[in-house]
């Protein structure tokens, strides 16, 4: 019987080595170790052995079984690995072919820049405020120290609805509306549409967007205005951006300034974008005029503040080097898909 077992082992070894697939290997396993397999057939004859021989032969049979198991498993692993490799090779595809996409919509470039800007100011503790686009003359002009007959009204060609009602020419009326409903500290930005009767061309539109900023608190200085705008400019256009304040005049701020940023393209050396000046005018700002604070119900002896206004169109044009403002309002898909 021992010989039989040895012969079986030898026979199995050869058969296992010859198996060329996992399926063939499985056949081999069944032929040798299955219920009707060769090992079982040998073991069936155990009953004819003497009680002394049985445990010896039993141990020998078990050893043979585990040797066979080990052989089967080793061969199985090899075959599986070969088969996997073959299958993977068969499944090769051209990986350079385009992927299947679900086409997403595109944000309007205004929204991209506006959200970025809002994020910057939210980070500095500004909240977002809004006001109506169809506005009273009072909020748009009168309360902002631009009484009837003020020559500066001429520079803002106004669309009128009635003698007293108009399309706001600036987002500044939101300043007044905020001051009327809130005592300091105030820290807001107010983005929105504004209207001026300018004919449409590459740099003018009768409708455009401004973002107004207003800070009112005790001890607010022009240095704070400068610091705030410098931070904004660096965040929006990069750390190397420099800011320049130039004295100017707005009726609702005193002192007033226009704010230039070092040219985003040439960094201030002078190029066609900045018309060789190295600076690009980006916003208007100033310390809130005491008359305006007072009109808004805030005591200018106790509080001071600053305000600024920036044109979203200009920021967006600079950001994406768009040279024609009309593109923003025509909404051609070929344009929108670029953003």
């Amino acid at each position, binding site marked *: 019987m021992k010989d039989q077992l040895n012969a079986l082992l030898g026979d199995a070894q050869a058969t296992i080595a010859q198996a060329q697939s996992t399926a063939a290997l499985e056949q081999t396993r069944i032929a040798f170790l299955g219920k009707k397999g060769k090992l079982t057939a040998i073991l069936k004859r155990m009953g004819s052995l003497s009680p002394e021989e049985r445990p010896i032969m039993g141990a020998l049979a078990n050893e043979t079984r585990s040797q066979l198991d080990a052989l089967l498993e080793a061969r199985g692993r090899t075959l599986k690995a070969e088969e996997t490799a073959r299958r993977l090779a068969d499944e090769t595809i051209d990986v350079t072919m385009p992927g299947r996409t*679900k*086409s*997403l*919509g*595109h*944000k*309007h470039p205004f*929204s991209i820049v506006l959200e970025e800007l809002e994020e910057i100011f*939210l980070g*500095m*503790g*500004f*909240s*977002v405020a*809004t006001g109506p686009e*169809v*506005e009273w003359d009072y909020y748009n002009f009168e309360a902002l120290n631009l009484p009837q*007959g003020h*020559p*500066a009204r001429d520079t803002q060609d106004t*669309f*009128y*609805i009635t003698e007293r009602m108009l*399309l706001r020419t600036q987002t500044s009326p939101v300043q007044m509306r905020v001051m009327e409903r809130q005592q300091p*500290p105030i*820290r807001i930005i107010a983005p929105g*549409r504004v*209207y001026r009767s300018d*004919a449409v061309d590459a740099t003018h539109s*009768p*409708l455009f967007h401004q973002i107004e900023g207003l800070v009112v*608190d005790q001890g607010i*200085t*022009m*240095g704070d205005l*400068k*610091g*705030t705008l*410098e931070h904004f400019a660096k965040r929006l256009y990069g750390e190397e951006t420099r800011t320049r*304040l*130039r*004295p*100017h*005049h707005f*009726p609702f701020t*005193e*002192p007033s300034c*226009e704010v230039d940023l070092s040219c985003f393209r040439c960094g201030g050396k002078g190029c066609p974008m900045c018309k060789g000046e190295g600076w690009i005018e980006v916003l208007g700002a100033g310390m809130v*005029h*005491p008359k305006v604070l007072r009109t808004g119900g805030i005591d200018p002896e106790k509080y*001071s503040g600053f305000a600024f206004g920036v044109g979203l169109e200009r920021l967006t044009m600079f950001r994406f080097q768009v040279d024609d403002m009309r593109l*923003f*309002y*025509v*909404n*051609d*898909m*070929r344009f*929108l*898909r670029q953003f």
Partner: protein
Amino acid sequence: MKLSRKWLLDYLPLDVSSKEFADKMTLSGSKAESVEQEGSILENIVVGLVTQIERHPDSDHLWVAQTDIGGECAQIVTGAQNVRQGDYVPVAKDKSVVFGGKKIKGGKLRGVMSNGMMCSLEELGLTQHDFPYAITDGIFILGDDCTRVPGLDIHEAIGLNDVITEFEITSNRPDCLSVLGLAREAAATFGLPFAPPIPKTSIAEDAAAPLLSVQIDAPALCYRYAGAVVENVRIAPSPRWMRERLRASGVRPINNIVDITNYVMLEYGQPMHAFDLRYLDGNQVIVRTARDGERITTLDGTEHDLDSDVLVIADANKPVAVAGVMGGEFSGIMEDTTTIVFESACFSGIRVRNGAKKLGLRTEASSRYEKELDANACLICLHRALELVELLEAGEIAHGIVDVYPTPPQANTIPFDPDYVNRFIGISCDSERQIAILQSIGCKMKDGTILVPTNRKDLEQKADIAEEIARFFGYDNIPSTPLRGLADGRVTPVQRLQRKISTVLLAAGCSEINTYSFISPKAYNMIGLPDDSPLRESVTIINPLGEETGVMRTTALPSILETLAHNYKNHNADAALFELATVYIPRGTEELPIEKQQVAIGLYGADADYFTIKGIADELLAQLGITGYDVRRGSDPSYHPGRCAELLIDGAPFAVLGEIASQIAENYDLSARLYAAQIDFDTLFAQQNTARIYRQLPRYPAITRDLALVCDAAQPVLALQKIIEKAAGSLLEEIQLFDVYTGDQIAKGSKSVAFTLRLRSKDGTLTDEEADKIVARCLKNLTAAGANLRS
């Protein structure tokens, strides 16, 4: 304001380059827009002395001239007929550039060498106003007001060598619309001494009584009127230096008297006017409001009806000028004028502005008066004009001056508070420095108070003083500080929803657009709004740019359709877009309109159909957590009657969507099928439900049942679904429509509708019996509604 450097140097010892001048002035508040070197385009043009001139051997109209151009002789062939031997002319040498950038090179003309060109005024960029004695259709023969040295550069020889800095002057600084005003700013900017000049005339203290009487009937509108008569006027061109300065300032020289008025205006900022005394009946000036029915023909030849809104200068009988705007036709200076009146007056800014607006005349004078001028300057300006008359020998001043000045203004005073300035600006500038700055702009200090000069009406209170200190201290020198203190920055709830909507629609493949808020009133016809639709009531612009942008939209649909049309016409194969569009609903003249937002979506393309737009709306509502809404067939006239849905909450419609009716699309020249949706933002805002509570994941298996039903073809599927949902109750986990069929297998007028129901209990494994019971309940209710199980 164009500033001549030569003129400025008359009053200020300025020793910096024009570039540095422009830069520093900009930083102290006078923004230099441009710096222009006069005649900079001209190159290599010099004075030439014509030493010999003879006819061209082969031409009957050309001449051959020999010119001395400074130690060398240039032979020049010319077609001009006005050049004689001994004339000094501008010679554009070989390789030179004349006005307009034209390059001049030597070459043969009909066989004779010509080494350049003699220039006309035009070729130097000049006109007869600059050199009245020159002819226009010939060579410019230099007169004795030029430096006639052969070889001398032409710029220098004829005074075409000024540097002009153009400043943007803000409306609060009319004082800077003048050479002296800018000189003062420059002096303060560069720390130079500056003393305004004091004009001197030969008028004796005991001069004869004025030839003119002046009466101000409207002292609230005319603060001061000063006048003087000049006799034996000799009208002639002004001298070159005056013409040069006027030209540099952008003003055309006319004749000595007119030029003097302009010169004084440019120098002092004070408009001057000159009348011919002949036309001043009664030698009388009366400043009054016009009488109804009066008329005047102004210098420009237009006739105007006047009324009491207009302030006029009148003589004993009639208006002779619109005060501060323009003189009358016959009162102007003529060639034969012998006696003139100089007017130096100050009028109410608002009145001049209204008068100018009313008559449609905006002049240099009116635009200055509008900004409120300094009445104190009137007399000194009149003296300056008379000084110039004497200097130019343009007439005689034998009689005294009239000066009617009812109430001279007090100098405004502002407390001097250097600490406030430092606190407010955030600087430390000691009081000596602050005082020095204030003095440099003309303020005087007295007992801790600042006396503001009367030409600085913009300085009213301490914040204005802070600005003056800050701009000469230098905005650049203000230390930057970050905002102090905690603040909680947040977006508004409305904005948060806008962003959410935007995110969903972008993910749904729609691109965001921005369209004008104003539309043409015709757009309402284009989208088929009924004549009696309340949406036709729009906020209307009184003074629109054009009809196209005449009214504020009450619906975003026209904007969407126009944008789709643009894309379609430009061969974009598909488009999907949306706008969070504001619409404006009027509420009369006493209340501002309601401004509300519409979520407007539009699309077209090969893959688009009704269910695309419906799906986008479904997804948007689902993302916003809005479930309890109803859908029914809509009847919006802009939409296809069979493919329009209306969404409702509690019976109130809040959205319409579907396919745009083909006749509406045709109004936009579109043959494609268009799909649109308009959803009311306020409803989304009110109904949004973003609160979420976790539901346990299923622990027991589900049972799936399909229901194929046959019902009337017109039966809305949603109604069947709702019946099933109600009947199945809470064990219905999900219901899905998977097929709708009409055709041969189904009776005509009927359709087959198939749903898949997934049933599950959270308390245990559902049995088939339980599932059957639920299905039976559904079928019973469905049958009652006319939908039977398909056999």
